[in-house]
């Protein structure tokens, strides 16, 4: 389909079907039936099989006409894309539509207290019973788990195989007695994550994704989607004021819940955008020492921006030999955030002790100072990124592994 054909068909559909007075769910159901909710997906599964360029036309029309699209925020897209890639026909039909409409919220159950960086070392048990899988263990860092209907879960189904081969990937109903969710309060006072305790929780046999023992391959898909940024809900806002109609009002309510875990995310990046203004307000900009540190910060943040542009221009041109920009960009974000926090501290001076809404920039500086330590941990620690860069980009030798052989014999945390 050409650009114009897509535009014409979509506008005809919107003309006939869209009304701001529809309920959010009703409107999204119409979108899903017509394939406009996920145009990149295949036609057999609620999409249109569009290319990126074709899908961009849809996005553009939605933006221009202030149309509410499919539910986006939070871990639900990780689940959707993984099910689409590895799920059975029945799983796709059962789960995908309600992810798109927002009827079901999802969470990700991967990390454990005993396996953080070493994700494949998961020791949550999955034992096969006659008609279900029985799950026991503990997960952690589960964004949105407190209001999730379902979770994507990695658990160990075989303890005698090497660690990567004994994992399986499940879809678990979060609304059952064996699942207990507790909020996890962070050092910055927010509680955007949870701990999830699984005690004889049940998973139906047909909720296994991929084959038994293929969990690591499936999880790798989820992680790569996560790195591409699907899980980021930041900045998502309603295309029109809630007063413009029921669909916008209900979307605003949805976003209030879904965006909540992410409100501090800009602060963990160090808020370099506030630096110049703050330096002027406080007069710190007159200090040569502060100016030097500010310039170092702007060097880093500008170079990161330019580098990301160059990588995407490179990819568009189809050229070879692109660096794994992900790991370098992630490491760069940590360095930028730390330098920004350092500069904010210099600018504020003793006032950096103050916190709360009456402190600088409505409390955002204080929140920045106590949120930045997260950025070099979340989504893969700096140390892991450095290993990836050294081994995969620079081709430096891997360290000798201590975790080969049957998983049950590998030394691990006593949980």
């Amino acid at each position, binding site marked *: 389909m050409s650009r114009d054909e897509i535009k014409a068909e979509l506008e005809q559909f919107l003309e006939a079907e869209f009304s701001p007075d529809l309920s959010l769910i009703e409107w999204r159901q119409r979108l899903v039936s017509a394939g406009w909710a996920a145009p990149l997906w295949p036609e057999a599964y609620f999409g249109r099989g569009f290319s990126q360029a074709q899908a961009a036309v849809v996005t553009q029309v939605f933006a221009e006409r202030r149309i509410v699209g499919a539910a986006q925020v939070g871990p639900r897209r990780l689940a959707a894309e993984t099910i689409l890639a590895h799920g059975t026909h029945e799983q796709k039909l059962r789960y995908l539509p309600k992810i798109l409409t927002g009827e079901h919220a999802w969470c990700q159950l991967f990390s454990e207290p005993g396996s953080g960086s070493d994700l494949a070392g998961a020791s949550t048990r999955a034992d096969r019973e006659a008609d279900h899988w029985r799950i026991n263990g503990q997960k952690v860092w589960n964004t949105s788990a407190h209001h999730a209907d379902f979770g994507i879960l990695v658990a160990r189904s075989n303890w005698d195989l090497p660690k990567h081969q004994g994992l399986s990937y499940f879809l678990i109903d979060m609304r059952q007695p064996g699942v207990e969710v507790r909020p996890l309060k962070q050092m910055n006072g927010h509680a955007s994550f949870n701990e999830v305790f699984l005690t004889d929780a049940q998973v139906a046999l047909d909720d296994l994704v991929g084959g038994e023992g293929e969990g690591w391959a499936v999880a790798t898909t989820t992680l790569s989607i996560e790195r591409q940024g699907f899980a980021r809900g930041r900045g998502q806002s309603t295309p029109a004021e809630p007063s413009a109609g029921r669909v916008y009002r209900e979307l605003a309510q949805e976003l209030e819940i879904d965006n909540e875990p992410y409100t501090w995310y800009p602060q963990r990046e160090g808020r370099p955008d506030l630096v110049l203004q703050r330096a002027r307000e406080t007069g710190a900009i007159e200090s040569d020492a502060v100016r030097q540190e500010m310039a170092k910060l702007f*060097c880093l943040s*500008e*170079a990161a921006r330019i580098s990301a542009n160059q990588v995407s*221009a490179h990819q568009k041109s189809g050229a070879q030999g692109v660096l794994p920009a992900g790991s370098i960009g992630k490491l*760069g974000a940590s360095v930028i955030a730390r330098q920004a926090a350092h500069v904010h501290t210099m600018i504020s001076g003793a006032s950096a002790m103050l916190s709360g809404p009456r402190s600088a920039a409505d409390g955002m500086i204080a929140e920045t100072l106590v949120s930045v330590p997260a950025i070099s941990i979340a989504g893969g620690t700096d*140390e892991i990124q450095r290993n990836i860069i*050294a081994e995969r*980009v620079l*081709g430096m*030798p891997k360290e000798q592994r201590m975790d080969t052989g049957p998983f049950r014999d590998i030394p691990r945390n006593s949980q």
Partner: protein
Amino acid sequence: MQAVLSEDQMQFKQVIARFFDTHSTMPAVRRLSETETGFDPVVWSELSETLGLPGTHLPEEYGGHGFGPTELGIILEEMGRTLYCGPFFSSAVMAGYALACFGDEAAKIEKLPQIAAGTTRATLVLDDLNHPSKVGRLIKANQAGVLTGTAPIVLDGGSAQAFLIVAREPAGLGLFELSPTSPGVEITLQESIDMTRKIARLTLQSAPGLRLGSVTEQGLYQFWDLISVALAHEMIGGAARLLNDTVEYTKGRYQFGRPIGSFQALKHRCADLLMSLEFAKAATHHAGFCLAAGEETTIYPSMAKAMAADCFMDMARAAIQLRGGIGFTWEDDTHLWFKRAKCDEVLLGAPYQQRARMMDILQEAQDVA
């Protein structure tokens, strides 16, 4: 504006890389660094006559090839990668750009084609190499164009065939020309930390100069941006080579029964260096693209010079450290790079001065807005 090199520019880069891989080997660098003039006239004529490199960035109407900062940057990146020894930066970049920026029409018509063709090896005399605002404090010209004063550091001053000199005039700054054999010219070779780039001290005592044009304050800053970005390219080329060679070294050096490159302490340091290199490269290439697009007074030239200098020095320090004791010997090549990095770091303004300029530009832009 351009975001990455075009197909043509990539091909150009390959040609240039092959040339310097052949003609600027480490044995050649070693040999030339021990000589007084510090360059190989045969290689100079080849890069001038066969490849036409000195005219790359100079306008076609004055015998150049009419390309811009990006193509010039490609050449310098490859020169930096191979530690090329020769008067390209002093003659083609500094003198060539100075004449193109400040020369009168007649001067450009007469002099620039020879610099573009490499038949005249000129150098630019600046009595200060730290900051454009300090230029013109030591060398003065009277109404008749007679020059007096000293420039402590003149690149390739001992071998240059022509001196272009920025001097303080009764009103403003002017660009003058002098021959090394003119009366009142005293050239003293200086010892440099960096043996791969020769320097001399120039003392002028009532030396009669030929006035070529006027140097405005704004023009001097823009010129400074052009040569700083060119120098930044040389530095990222050197830094990239050092990282590559150092990583290779850690793969082949065994201690405690394993390659030292398998230790995380070294891997993590190399990963950080790669990030710093990628950022410095991004900044430098972007600065070239901005200049090519005619964007004036942006933060990018200063930013590129600061980042490339810090990156090159970090890389050189690590290159020695990761080699251990052998890295500190004269026999190992690493010190040649370290010394180039140290001199490039301070040439045209140390990183702190570049950062100060960035902040001035940012603040001015915000004041205007």
